[in-house]
């Protein structure tokens, strides 16, 4: 059955496909170690200066003449990272709690307009980010709310709740309702059943939803761009601003670190999932 030419073609295609996806990432990682400060596309020699420079520990910066300004921009970047992490932690927690509770309620209780409610929960995911961003901005301005880290958190929660909801709902749909009945039958109140049976059964879904929410929150540019004030900026918005002033080698170092963090989070997610399934 095996056609050698077909197999070679398929292999080549697969390799090309993965190269297409991963080449940009590897290029960035390569550039982040290139010591050439003027043109990153011309290899000079290996250096870790851009990494140490991020922490303000290196003398070599792109803008040697203005070292004070450079250290300040590093400080700003670290502040942006801190903002991003804070936002992601809060939004992940809030949207996971609300999304999970909603998924349970919608699956277990019958009430009027249930279908409509369901549809409305999907909407923020379908909506283009730019529309959501503008909508949120107009909303905050019209109720007189100053743009700050709080508005970023609220903005993220509006659409991340939907993501968590959908993932937990899928898990909920696959759950045998008899499990909860068995628990009640054996004397457990609804609260005990929730704690001992329902939540542990949903755990992989909840965890998956939370990780996704965290990653999307860390990554979001468009919506955050609209709802962040001048004071609090997240890392993606900060990098976007940096690039507009020309691509500096430090960007590659930042990007490489973010790739590393993403891989670690994804691996963590996979590991937790494989541990859950017997």
């Amino acid at each position, binding site marked *: 059955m095996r056609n050698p030419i077909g197999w070679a073609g398929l292999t080549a295609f697969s390799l090309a496909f993965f190269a297409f996806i991963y080449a940009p990432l590897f290029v960035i990682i390569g550039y982040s170690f290139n010591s050439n400060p003027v043109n990153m596309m011309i290899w000079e020699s290996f250096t870790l200066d851009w990494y140490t420079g991020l922490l303000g520990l290196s003398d070599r910066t792109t803008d040697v003449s203005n070292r004070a300004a450079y250290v300040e921009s590093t400080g700003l970047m670290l502040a942006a990272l801190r903002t991003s992490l804070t936002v992601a932690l809060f939004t992940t927690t809030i949207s996971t709690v609300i999304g999970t509770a909603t998924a349970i309620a919608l699956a277990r209780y019958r009430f009027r307009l249930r279908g409509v409610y369901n549809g409305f929960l999907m909407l923020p995911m379908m909506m283009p980010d730019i529309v959501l961003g503008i909508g949120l901005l107009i909303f905050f301005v019209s109720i007189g709310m100053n743009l700050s880290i709080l508005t970023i958190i609220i903005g993220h929660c509006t659409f991340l709740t939907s993501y968590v909801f959908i993932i937990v709902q899928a898990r909920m749909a696959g759950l*045998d309702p*008899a*499990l909860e*009945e*068995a*628990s*009640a*039958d*054996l*004397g*457990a*109140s609804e609260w*005990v059943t929730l704690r*001992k*049976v329902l939540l*542990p*059964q949903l*755990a992989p879904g909840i965890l998956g939803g939370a990780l996704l929410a965290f990653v999307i929150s860390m990554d979001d540019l468009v919506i955050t761009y609209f709802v962040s004030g001048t004071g609090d900026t997240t890392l993606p918005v900060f990098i976007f601003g940096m690039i507009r002033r020309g691509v500096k080698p430090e960007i590659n170092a930042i990007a490489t670190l973010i790739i590393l963090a993403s891989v670690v989070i994804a691996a963590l997610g996979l590991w937790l999932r494989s541990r859950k399934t*017997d």
Partner: protein
Amino acid sequence: MAPLLEIREARRSFVTPEGGRLAALDGVNLDVGANEFVTLLGPSGCGKTTLLRAISGFESLDSGTMRLDGADLTALPPFRRPVNTVFQSYALFGHMSVARNVGYALEVAGVARATREAQVAEVLEKVGLAGMGARRPGQLSGGQRQRVALARSIIAKPRLLLLDEPLSALDRNLRQQMQLELKSLQHALGIAFIFVTHDQEEALTMSDRIVVMRSGQIEQIGTPREIYRHPRNRFVAEFIGETNLFPVTIDRVEGAEALARTAEGVEMRLPGKDRRPGEQVTAILRPADFTLGGAGIPGRVTRAVYLGSDLYLFVQPLAGGPEIRVIARDGAGFDEGAAVHLAHDPARVHVLEAA
């Protein structure tokens, strides 16, 4: 002695998607004694599960009363009812070990860990799963899961155990073994079982009493023997075991015997008690009630099937009418096409008043 469970005029209807109302329970009256094995038997959709769920509290009644030990059950939520259930899907908690599954009722009730572990070990021993406590339900066979579900539901010593087709997922051999084990477990525990099945053989082997249901109503309650030998109507007769039904008209009554014949002219002898000439009744004879001999209903074998030592025959009466099913203990030589005579003892005939 007052019964353990007392159900009076239980009614429950559902609104069907088609817009009508369907009476899943239509005036059910049932008493269950303290140490009784009662089986609910009936065709699919007759309301067996609904009745069980009403007792466990997962389904409410539209009207009617339910008392357990004299106390009203209907007002209690499921988790307060002293009744436990073995679910058809077993509903084991996949994220817990077998031991924790089994000890769940005690854990929830706040029983101390040491006591709990001792009782779990004891119950696991009882259902033949000693030493398997550390496993996850996912690492067990179907039969073992069934035992875990059973162990989990008896650990809190309920007065009444409800089992909804607990054996239906098992293969035939395992099933027969579990039937015997369930029955002896019920004896040893001294608690009442209400067991749902739509396998009539299972019902006949296991039950102290059988409740035959149809469309939300109880058709007959009785011991397996009563139900089998003295079905109250055609439905019960046809539902329980293989049956031959003969709508007959009484010709004449001679002492203890009545002579009757079907419209086609097949002649039968019935118990003569209470019979009047000209009366139309239905005569019921089980396949094993016939003997093959030189006298009796003349017929021809249309099909012969060997069932181990027995021979299962389909006999077409020469007079006409439906085929008669016969089990012959020693049926050698009666192959297809053979001429036979089917004799029967009039005392074995059960008579239904309606034709």
